[in-house]
């Protein structure tokens, strides 16, 4: 990165709202499947149709606005944005222009506040498949509800941009506002970026980036564009204000072809939709049902359970995972133990199987049971892990497995003494070392005994007995 310039990034993110029906008609909001099947006269722009507003979409947008610390407008209005494109059946998109639903919010990332300028509701367009000779259009996605979340140009690096997007996505998922799957285009990001010499107040000319289908491509495309712009500026060139299309395969951003005239969207107030009025009471009701958000839960987890930042971050990654943690500690009163197990053993299984915590076959109660056995020293850590693996494979409970396999810790001292005697005899050289003052070798002896007793005894107990013997 060229350090002569300050990077200025603003992000526009489209989030698909998790509603049953489309924004302006009662068609299923699900798309994919057979083309042009989830369509009606309204979303396919037939003559004479009118839009009607989906209440749930409004509620979800309010939820998002509240969670992003926005001011919710008691009055907001809709507008038509005009452009011709085959997948836009009406020739205009219904969106919000002058009076958006929410304004002036912020998101905190690593102690830094990124200001949210506005959040507005709008409808999605259809999908096109392009070939060199023709384009095929599917209207199933037409009218699916979106919110557009626009930041102020306050982001200063690609890393920060990605961090902001991760945080935003996490919040939207916590709220159950959206599934935010980028590959399904539930969560689309269009950054604008400009450079200015350090110390200069005035913004430089900005470009916009499109077609970014993963956080990775956001990062790469921003890096690319910073490089490109700084090279131009270095040689005294001028940045052209334009929209660049990210080519995922070749990792370059190019000018979009086919855009001949400059855009003029001719916004005007949507005459078919009266003003959306939200009273305080409604907004407060939604506020009261907001779930705890990641940063709120983080505070609780850190303060109440004294967990490390790293572990907390992993636990809070998704709301479901965090909920699983909370459920488990209700039944197993050792937050650190539970946390460690979740971020190592459980996480490993989820990653291995590529499943979410919701699809995980061990319910919190059973995990708590297993961990309680461990805490009561009825089994060792090694055995607990074996049992855990069995639970994942067989769907049996920990108690069932322990009973079947006789894995409870033995209280039979004779077995212990016999094993210790054997180990001490077999490892006379080690014993000699110990006696000569090299006490650390005791762990080798403990390990050997553990192996002989198949983990039925705790290391502490073994250690005590060995020390007695020696």
């Amino acid at each position, binding site marked *: 990165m060229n350090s002569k310039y300050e990077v200025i990034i603003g992000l526009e993110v489209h989030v698909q709202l998790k509603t049953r029906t489309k924004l302006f008609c009662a068609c299923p909001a699900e798309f994919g499947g057979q083309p042009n099947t989830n369509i009606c006269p309204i979303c396919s722009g037939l003559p004479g149709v009118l839009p009607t507003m989906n209440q749930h979409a409004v509620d979800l947008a309010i939820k998002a606005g509240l969670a992003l610390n926005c001011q919710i407008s008691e009055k907001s209005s809709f507008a038509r944005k005009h452009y011709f494109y085959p997948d836009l059946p009406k020739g205009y998109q219904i969106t919000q222009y002058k009076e958006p639903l929410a304004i002036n919010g912020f998101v905190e990332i690593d102690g830094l506040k990124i200001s949210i300028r506005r959040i507005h509701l709008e409808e999605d367009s259809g999908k096109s498949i392009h070939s060199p000779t023709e*384009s095929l259009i599917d209207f199933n996605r037409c009218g699916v509800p979106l919110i557009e979340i626009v930041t102020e140009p306050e982001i200063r690096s690609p890393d920060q941009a990605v961090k902001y997007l991760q945080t935003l996505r996490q919040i939207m998922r916590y709220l159950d506002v959206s599934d935010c799957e980028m590959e399904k285009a539930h969560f689309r990001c269009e950054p604008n970026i400009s450079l200015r010499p350090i110390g200069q107040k005035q913004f430089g000319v900005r470009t916009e980036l499109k077609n970014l289908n993963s956080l990775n491509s956001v990062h790469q495309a921003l890096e690319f564009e910073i490089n490109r712009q700084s090279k131009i500026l270095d040689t005294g060139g001028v940045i052209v204000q334009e929209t660049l299309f990210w080519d995922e395969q070749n990792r370059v951003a190019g000018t979009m072809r086919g855009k001949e005239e400059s855009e003029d969207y*001719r916004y005007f107030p949507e005459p078919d939709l*009266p003003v959306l009025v939200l009273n305080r009471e409604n907004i407060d009701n939604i506020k009261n049902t907001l779930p705890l958000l990641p940063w709120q839960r983080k505070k609780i987890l850190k303060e109440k359970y004294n967990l490390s930042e790293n572990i907390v971050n992993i636990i809070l990654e998704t709301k479901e995972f965090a909920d699983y943690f909370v459920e488990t500690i209700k039944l197993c009163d050792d937050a650190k133990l539970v946390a460690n197990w979740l971020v190592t053993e459980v996480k490993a299984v989820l990653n291995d199987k590529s499943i979410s915590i919701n699809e995980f076959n061990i319910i919190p109660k059973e995990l708590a049971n297993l961990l309680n056995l461990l805490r009561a020293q009825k089994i060792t850590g090694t055995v607990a892990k074996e049992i855990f693996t069995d639970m994942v494979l067989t769907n049996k409970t920990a108690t069932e497995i322990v009973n079947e396999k006789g894995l409870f810790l033995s209280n039979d001292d004779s077995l212990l003494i016999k094993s210790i005697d054997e180990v001490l005899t077999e490892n006379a050289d080690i014993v000699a070392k110990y006696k000569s003052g090299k006490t650390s070798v005791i762990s080798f002896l403990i390990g050997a005994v553990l192996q002989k007793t198949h983990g039925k005894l705790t290391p502490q107990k073994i250690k005590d007995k060995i020390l007695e013997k020696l």
Partner: protein
Amino acid sequence: MLTQIDLEKVAKLAKLGLTLEESSRLTGEIEKIISYFQQIKHLNLYDVTPMTHAVSIVLPLRYDEIRPTKCLVEYLSYKKFNYIFVPAVLE
């Protein structure tokens, strides 16, 4: 003053193909109409709120419930395997 160049720009925006003859004839006609409209430009409209809707009502909200409509695709005229087809859109 509306020039023929202005009009051709507007026609492009509105995706209206006009012949030269048409655009030259329309420029004159439209110029005449627009100059008639100028009469409202001189009114004192300071403090007047724009009226965007004929009645002041509040947007009613629809319950988020799917209402299946019968297959509509047959009413769309230009199809290939259920897709609507158009000449290639360059991107």
